[in-house]
């Protein structure tokens, strides 16, 4: 069972309180972009065994979207942070580097 800390209401929310929102930190390619970029934006997703960054919504609680860093293999949660964040915060990256040296995910490592 996954338990994530909601950064907005401070509640440790159970997985059943939450709604998964897919991969985090997507860069949008809209009008004016190439077909390849648009296809990548629409369809291509990370599918790692290990460190992953996801969007979650505290749907039965405060209703806010937030981002979570966790390991898909061990279900270890590295941390959660507000959705208005363009890249994983330094403390979370340091924490991941502590147990997963040399990790990389998309453009982050």
């Amino acid at each position, binding site marked *: 069972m996954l338990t994530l800390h909601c950064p907005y209401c*401070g509640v*440790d*929310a159970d997985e*059943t309180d939450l709604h998964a929102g897919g991969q985090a930190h997507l860069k949008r390619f809209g009008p004016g972009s190439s077909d390849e970029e648009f296809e990548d934006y629409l369809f291509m997703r990370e599918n790692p065994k290990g460190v992953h960054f996801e969007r979650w919504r505290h749907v*039965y*609680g*405060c209703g*806010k979207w937030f981002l979570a860093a966790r390991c898909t293999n061990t279900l270890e949660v590295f941390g959660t942070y507000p959705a208005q964040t363009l890249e994983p915060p330094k403390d979370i990256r340091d924490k991941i580097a502590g147990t997963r040296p040399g990790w990389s995910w998309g453009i982050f490592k």
Partner: protein
Amino acid sequence: MSNAVSALQGKLAPGEVTIREAGLRGMIVLRGDLTDKKLRAVCSGVTGVDYPGQGQANCVGEKGLCWMSPDELLVLVPYAEVAEAIALIDKALKGTHYLAENVSDARALILVEGTYGREVIAKLAPADLHPDSFKPGDFRRTRLGQVAAAFWMRDEDTFEVICFRSVAEYTFNLLAASAKAGAVGHF
């Protein structure tokens, strides 16, 4: 609407822990900038209680303020005083970005009264209800069984539960079944 009735009209499931529909209660959803001093002042003025902290509820009798999310507050007043309360909020917050809406008839309020009320709810919600982590004054939005609900403690032996009116009967039956099954003795 000449004769307003609550969802279950005071339905009662007596027992060691009694489940009771509380009847009509005025509820106002207030969305806005909760750090705004004017907003906090008018909320306290309307209800007579202090502004609650994150995840808290301050309730006295039928009046109270519950923290719903970083931009949402639930204002509780007696059913007959809702229009008056909204008028006061509208007057105080004129010109700012906010929304105050009467949701009294869209919701149901259910009371869980008895010594192991804590366990009746703990069996249904994915929330930590240990006496050390959930105390009178705490407020939690979560789910009960399959529906969204929120609850807080009026005192050590009384929980107040709110849910949507359309699922009031489900929530009531769920709580009644949980109460009838007895205490687990977990806390």
